[in-house]
């Protein structure tokens, strides 16, 4: 089974972003592998270790620096990588899910992948659309928000997170697209020996603009703003004051 894993370069999860000129300020900001994509790579590598998969290919769409994201994926255990280069912003401001899923579709068809694992969403755009759109374009079954995957390489049982609990879905025949959620696994750290090995792994580069796909955004971003600051809480001195405030200020009791 050949697995293609999408890995996105996003603003590091621990960074507090700032909005400048109606957009998120990306200058000098720390970028890292999207946490959900990290979970997807981890799952793919585990499937390889279980001998269910025989090749894991990591793919990213992004600028020159996105090779660092691929290096992380390779250090975690991916066998080789594909870098689709573009200078378009990948946080929804320029490149959007419809174009992204078309790029993936083309690569999947060339690679003859049996399974596509993606993070459920990018923490920059929070769309969660690439997976389902890709499945639609390919005409493949899809399961999103996977919390557990069991497969023998031919069929697959996936536990899926929903707001009301876990849903178990059986895919009787691969190939399929699966997007990965938080509970699926705990990604491994990149060990030094594996980081060294990763340097020797193959990375194929290709320009997004040369793929014959319309990369123009479908939606126009009208405004980007920070959420209003949370109002400071106040300390009350006694019960009477609390009741007074609940009654007369918050208006939650009669």
């Amino acid at each position, binding site marked *: 089974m050949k697995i293609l894993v999408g890995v996105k370069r996003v603003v*590091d*999860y*621990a*960074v*507090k972003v700032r909005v400048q000129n109606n957009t998120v300020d990306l200058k*000098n900001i*720390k970028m*890292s*592998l999207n*946490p959900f994509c*990290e979970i997807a790579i981890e799952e793919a590598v585990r499937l390889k270790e279980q001998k269910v998969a025989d090749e894991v290919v990591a793919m990213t769409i992004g600028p020159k620096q996105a090779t660092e994201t691929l290096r*992380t994926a390779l*250090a975690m255990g991916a066998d080789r990588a594909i870098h689709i280069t573009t200078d378009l912003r990948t946080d929804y401001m320029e490149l959007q899910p419809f174009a992204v899923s078309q790029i993936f579709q083309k690569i999947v068809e060339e690679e003859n992948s049996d399974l596509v694992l993606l993070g459920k969403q990018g923490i920059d755009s929070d769309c969660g659309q690439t997976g389902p759109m890709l499945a639609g374009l390919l005409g493949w079954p899809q399961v999103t928000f996977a919390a557990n995957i069991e497969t023998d390489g031919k069929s697959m049982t996936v536990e899926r997170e929903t707001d009301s609990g876990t849903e178990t879905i059986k895919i009787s025949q691969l190939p399929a697209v699966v997007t990965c959620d938080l509970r699926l696994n*705990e990604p491994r*750290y*990149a*060990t*030094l*020996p594996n*980081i*060294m090995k990763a340097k020797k792994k193959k990375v194929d580069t290709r320009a997004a603009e040369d793929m014959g796909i319309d990369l123009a955004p479908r939606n126009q971003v009208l405004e980007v703003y920070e959420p209003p600051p949370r109002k400071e809480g106040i*300390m009350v*001195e006694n019960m009477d004051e609390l009741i007074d405030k609940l009654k007369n200020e918050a208006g939650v009791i009669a």
Partner: protein
Amino acid sequence: MRSLLKRTLQCTLKPEIRRSYLSPALTIATSHDSEHLFSLMNCRPGSLITDETALTKYNQDWTKKYKGDSSIVVRPQSTEEVSKILKYCNQKSIGVVPQAGSTGLCGGSVPISNEIILSVECLNNIEYFDSMSGILGAQAGCILQDLQDYTATRDHLVPIDLGAKGTCQIGGNVSTNAGGSYYYRYGSLRGNVLGLEVVLANGEVLNLGYNPSHLKDNTGYDLKALFIGAEGTLGIVTKVAILCPRLQKSKCAAFLACQNFEQVIKALEMAKSHLGEILAAFEFMDDEVLGVVKEKVPLPILEMYPYCVLVETHGSDEEHDLAKIEKYLSSAMEEDIVLDGVLAQSLSQVQDFWKVRESCNPCVAEKGFVYKYDVSLPVHDFPLFVSEIRSNMPPERPVRVFNYGHVIDGNLHCNIVELGNFERDHELSKTVEELVLDAVIRRRGSISAEHGLGQYKHIHLPKIRDAATLSCMYATKQQFDPKGILNPGKYLPPQTVPS
């Protein structure tokens, strides 16, 4: 003087004697005093605490080893109120314990008896920040992490970082000359604190370069230096002007494994030479402490090795920093100095590594009563020192020695615990104390690298300071606090023999 010191040296420490260490000249505060103190704070609700339940948090320190008996906590909101309170207490000879975050490890922040507690927690305003010079002016009760968050949004960072950052307050950090993990990179508080506002025992307020504050100012005796690390015994710090360096653009960390301590030292030397100016922190942990930490926190390296090291770099260019780090790590691995390791791929992973290091203290504390030692030693002496301690522990008892710390500063945190025993065992305490102190002094180390003296280590001062030095220290105390109301019974050992 000499015979007094000699007699002090010969006395053995029993817990019940502590209380009579306080000067008989001090009076115990009454309800009349508390009413008056309340009025000095304009009878502001919450400024005076006398309720027994509410008092518990102030009377006990973080380690729960030290418990005071205070019945009054005052929480002034301004320097003026601090001044009025101290003036009154000085007139009435009432003992005062200044208290900030109370995260110290030598019981310096809690009363020994029934001194009143003056908490600076309500003095929590950030007063100014000059981005050109990097000088931050803040009141003593500001929580360290709040200052870190504030400066981070302004492209700067506070030069100290400790595990207790979410609770400790800058006034306490300054009064204890806190060290922390970035000491090597950003230096001591003694260098970074550019100014202080302090209130003396008699209520006088001194502006020691707080406002205005300058990077360079050589005008008169540097009195503020006396208050840094004085643990509140010379005056109460109410405001701090601290020099904040530029925030690093690139932060990287690696968690490494070594087979023995010689390798740890080699890894450190290599880090200094390869990483150079970007090296920010280098901490070590032994397998004993990692063994208890891993029960609570997942370790980045799954296999157990005798030692692990956490290296962090701060730089202005991520590509440049990563290139240096990768060169360092591949050389260290090639030469078998480092057997295994992981490199953080995101800031969250950097935080994961620090979680391991910062969990050492609390995880050890959960195993039993901790005989805690914080020593400075020549780095090459660490292993011999540790094995000496271990080999002298009673073999029939489950006593374990956990070691970790800022090896880059020659600072070892040696924590001795009898597993499952949460009470101080006086016999064991005495054995351990004599053993450790002797082992440190023999190696010309410091018996308290960064934790200070408090109410626990001060009795050893005569062993390590000569008579002339001690005499000057007592004279300094006499000058600033003639009645001895500030943090009585701490920092300097008693000059009179207890009855």
